[in-house]
């Protein structure tokens, strides 16, 4: 075994590398390659297309609307889900006899399947018989009015992600050294000061992780429009990946689908790079 020497670490890495190469890197590179060709409905490459597929997609009003919708969705859903989870985690920080009950309740949303949640919200959003209009005393058509549909969908996403975020943030907050918080108490720091000056800097690596995963996850979201709205009304809930899905499987147009997939990847990459810039300034590893 000693002879293995320098290659030993690579042997340990090889299963993961092979896995990623087969299921991520190869399909990814192949998809990029195919965006420069015309591909027929049966998946056969027919001709070199240059940038035509990208031009076609980027001049399609439906895709441009999908880009806008995705950005709106990410801006509405990602920060709010982390913010609400942070408040809940701060509230649940202190261990009590019944803490396991409310910890379970707060994190329960992550155990719910998307399709079940979507169907429950669909009934709650119903303009005539739904709970939300009854509580608010309104008559809004939450999912079938272009003005409200994306906001309504983002709210479902926030609700679904709170549990996951809460679990991570609670663990991180409980990991903050007690002496730091005691010192803050002795200095007379308010709860707001303690959270912003002590807790947040200490849990910033976790917040950073949640921001990165949340951005990536929300940019590639397609499940809710598939289940609830089919991208409507008037394309107001069509996201970039929903557009890709619809082109590939609803219209057999792989040319549009491949180009949309690569453009979505570029958006995700940019979002991740922006969040990494936040890491340099705001994340403390201590």
């Amino acid at each position, binding site marked *: *075994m000693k002879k293995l020497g320098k290659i030993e670490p690579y042997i340990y890495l090889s299963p993961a590398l092979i896995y990623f190469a087969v299921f991520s890197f190869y399909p990814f590179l192949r998809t990029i390659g195919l965006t420069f060709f*015309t*591909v*027929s*409905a*049966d*998946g056969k490459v*027919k001709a070199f297309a240059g940038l035509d597929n990208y031009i076609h997609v980027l001049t399609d009003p*439906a895709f441009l609307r999908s880009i806008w919708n995705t950005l709106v969705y990410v801006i509405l859903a990602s920060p709010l889900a982390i913010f609400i989870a942070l408040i809940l985690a701060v509230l649940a920080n202190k261990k009590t006899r019944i803490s396991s009950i409310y910890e379970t309740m707060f994190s329960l949303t992550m155990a719910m399947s998307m399709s079940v949640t979507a169907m429950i919200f*669909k*009934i709650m*959003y*119903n*303009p*005539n*018989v739904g709970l939300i209009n009854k509580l608010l005393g309104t*008559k809004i*058509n939450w*999912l*079938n009015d272009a003005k409200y549909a994306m906001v309504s969908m983002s709210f479902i996403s926030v609700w679904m992600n709170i549990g996951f975020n809460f679990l991570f943030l609670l663990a991180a907050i409980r990991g903050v050294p007690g002496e730091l918080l005691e010192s803050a108490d002795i200095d007379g720091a308010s709860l707001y000061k303690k959270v912003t000056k002590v807790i947040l800097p200490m849990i910033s690596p976790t917040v950073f992780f949640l921001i990165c995963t949340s951005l990536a996850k929300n940019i590639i979201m397609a499940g809710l429009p598939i289940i609830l709205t*089919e*991208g*409507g*009304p*008037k*394309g107001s809930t069509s996201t970039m990946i929903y557009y890709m899905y*619809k*082109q590939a*499987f*609803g*219209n*057999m*147009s792989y*040319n549009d689908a491949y180009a949309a997939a690569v453009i979505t990847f570029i958006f995700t990459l940019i979002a991740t790079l922006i969040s990494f810039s936040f890491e340099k300034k705001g994340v403390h590893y201590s």
Partner: protein
Amino acid sequence: MKRFISLLMAAIMILSLAACGAKDTGEVKEPESTETAQEVQPEADSQQEEAQEPAEESKRISDADIEISFWHHMEGTNANALETVCNNFNDTVGKEYGIIVTPSFQGTNTAEKLNTLAQAGDWVNFPDICQVASAGIPTISGYDLFVSPEEMYAKGENIILPRESIIANNARTFTYKDELCAIPFSNSTILLYYNKGLFEAAGLDPENPPKTIAEMAEAIEKLTQKDGDEVTTYGLNVQVKRYQLVNWVGGEGEYNFIGDNEGGRAGLMSKVTFGEDGTLMTYLDEWEKVIATGGYKPVEDNINEEFAMELSAMAIMSSARIGKLKDLIGDEFEWGTAPLPKVNASDKGGTAVGGSGIVMFDKGDADELTATWIFQQYLGGEDAQYDFCTASGYIPMNKDLYETEKMKTYMAENPEIVAAVDQLLASNPNVQEPFDIVTGDINSIIDEEMVAFAQGEQDKQTTHDNIVNKCNQKLADYVKVNAE
């Protein structure tokens, strides 16, 4: 350590060889072995005859049971009904022929799964038989493994479902380039659902629902209830998408193909024709009357539940929802179904057949193909159709079944389905949903334009032109890439 690794490698190799050997004997079926088995059979048979006379001629396809993989897209009650049909097959016909069918749910879009496999050239993982929506037929019929019922009927072997037993309309739904590509299975048609109690309260005859769109508009005015400016009960709820529009326009006159090449059934559909022949405008002229009532709800939120809660007096939906509505409404109020109101009183076309059919694939084993063919036909047979349709609410596609006492009894006990059956049988077989390939885009275009029209955001002419031009653009994009 070296010794240990050597021993381990040797053990793995031996196990691998053993596994390969076992697989070979289990999976590869040499034709000779069947012959050998048949040669040996007489001796065995003679022994049996001595013990038990007279011996029946065996229908078994081969000595070993043949396993058939069946992909479907049924869920809930429908999945249970399908499971029952498969179990009945395995216990009866399957036992006779030595066939075991294993159904497996593959999500709601099986054509999508098949297409993914086909693109990867992964023919090994294809099922033997698959339930698909009619829209997938043109693509599936181009797969290397695809075998059409037309070919099997032409061979004339092992026929247990006569071709003539399939209702012409249902057969036409799954016909592409003059070839029957699937055995129809779970079929439905579009219907008008109406609340008889609300009809009576509005002074309308509950046994005489509207027959045309114009009559429906008059009924909507009487049925709509308001509290100030707010509508508390809508006269009609339906969101006009591709499914609804092609049924209305398709039924105009004798029939209407919607697109060129017989709506994609004779070849690739490259354009819609409902603009140039004026049928779309005729429909919009009538539909404008519905919009003008102020009691029409143009978007569907929870259409089943809202109808069940008497929030809409009429709704237009597939007959496949009859079972669901029965569950929701129970004995709360009396309701009925009626044929889809026509665009013009003189229209004779009727409506299209919706739903899915069963396609089969030849995976290279003659016995397996025979077994698959028998099961494919069984699903269209009287017993399977009766069991499946009575449990799920779909309309049987087997003509002979309607002559049986059990079906007559079922229809007498379930009057809601009578309108669906009558409408289907009275429709022209040429009235079908088109094979428009870019179905997703066409659905979105029609949906968006019709909602905008209903909500007063655009006029009739703009709606007409947008639907025609946008649909044609999408079809042209597809043809440009995929035309031979």
